[in-house]
């Protein structure tokens, strides 16, 4: 999963030549996100070798984009990223989260948005739980349980991974389809092969 998180706040789209370079050496699936605002943007990124595209802020600005992308490319390659956190006792959606100064409430309840994007054709939802993001205290189990109950497409947990136990916990308790992490892998605090062996030993289905 590659996020160009400042693409939307900066009014750009993700760098296409970079997509092609990565896709040519990678033999596992590859999803690209960042300022994809139209069918033409998506087509270009997919033609360069991305397997899926993810939209977040552009879908909030223009929800019909999800319908158009799903009709043109099929739901299976349309991911909707949702940045969500608790506010006033409800989970609410945030947009432009790539830039702290521009981050703003999208004025939508997270559950409503998850249901709406599925109806519009989203084939996967990555739920980034902002309360947990970057603090490495574990995934937001409570929020993921709520999301799972209204999500019949694959749901990916994001935000909060700090140790191997956190991955086991999120799979054991929430039935998410995947768990996303970035910083713990970038810093090499968790080695991916070791994590997969750890999870396989705990009977979580895993390609080793």
């Amino acid at each position, binding site marked *: 999963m590659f996020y160009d998180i400042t693409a939307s706040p900066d009014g750009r789209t993700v760098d296409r030549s970079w997509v092609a370079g990565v896709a040519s050496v990678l033999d*596992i699936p590859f999803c690209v996100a960042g300022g994809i605002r139209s069918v033409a943007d998506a087509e270009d990124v997919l033609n360069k070798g991305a397997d899926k595209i993810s939209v977040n802020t552009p879908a909030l600005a223009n929800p019909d984009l999800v319908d158009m992308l799903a009709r043109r490319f099929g739901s299976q390659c349309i991911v909707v990223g949702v940045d969500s956190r608790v506010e006033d006792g409800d989970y609410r959606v945030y947009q432009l989260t790539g830039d702290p100064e521009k981050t703003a409430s999208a004025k939508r309840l997270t559950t409503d948005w998850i249901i709406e994007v599925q109806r519009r054709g989203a084939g996967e939802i990555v739920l980034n739980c902002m309360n947990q993001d970057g603090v490495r205290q574990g995934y937001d189990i409570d929020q993921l349980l709520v999301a799972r109950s209204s999500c019949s497409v694959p749901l990916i947990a994001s935000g909060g991974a700090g140790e191997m136990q956190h991955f086991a916990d999120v799979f054991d308790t929430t039935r998410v389809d995947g768990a996303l992490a970035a910083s713990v892998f970038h810093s090499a605090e968790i080695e991916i092969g070791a994590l997969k062996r750890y999870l396989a030993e705990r009977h979580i289905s895993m390609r080793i």
Partner: protein
Amino acid sequence: MKRVAIIDSGGANIASLQYAFSRLGVANELTSDATTIRESSHVVLPGVGAAENAMQRLTDARLTDVIRALRQPVLGVCLGMQLLCEGSEEADVECLGIVPGIARRLPIEPGFPVPNMGWCATEIRSAHTLLAGIDNNSFFYYLHSYALQVSGHTVATAKHTAPFSALISHNNFAAAQFHPERSSVAGARLLSNFVGEKA
């Protein structure tokens, strides 16, 4: 000389297939030209996206009869598997009708999201040249909402709520529901086996 024609069905995973053959050192080209397709040693029918859209493109490019008449090894991938069959529940579209069967929508049940996305253990039901050197229950990468039921043409299966056809074979045509080009070592082996097949 070996040359893989990848039929331009307007799908979206075409670049990743091209890269996969290039990593194997096999000449390949994306084409919708009938002569190029007929004269290639191997043909791949890829596809990601909507069946209706892809069939329309094949029809517009006058390729439907060209594909039906191919005698060299042909490999359908993902949506390409549906296109080779008789039809798809997706928009009730009529497909090429080369391999018997109709793609059905995967049922949604708690614990079984649709699309079926991710790495699934793939059970080999009968020996096939495409599976040479690949262990039973190897993991392949899947990303689909429709699937073919298990039939006499099924070579390998994977499981959602029920087993479905992961790999089918019929004369010189074969098709995979999974994405070999995104299935790491096992997928590369399958593609390598495919280009090793003789016309």
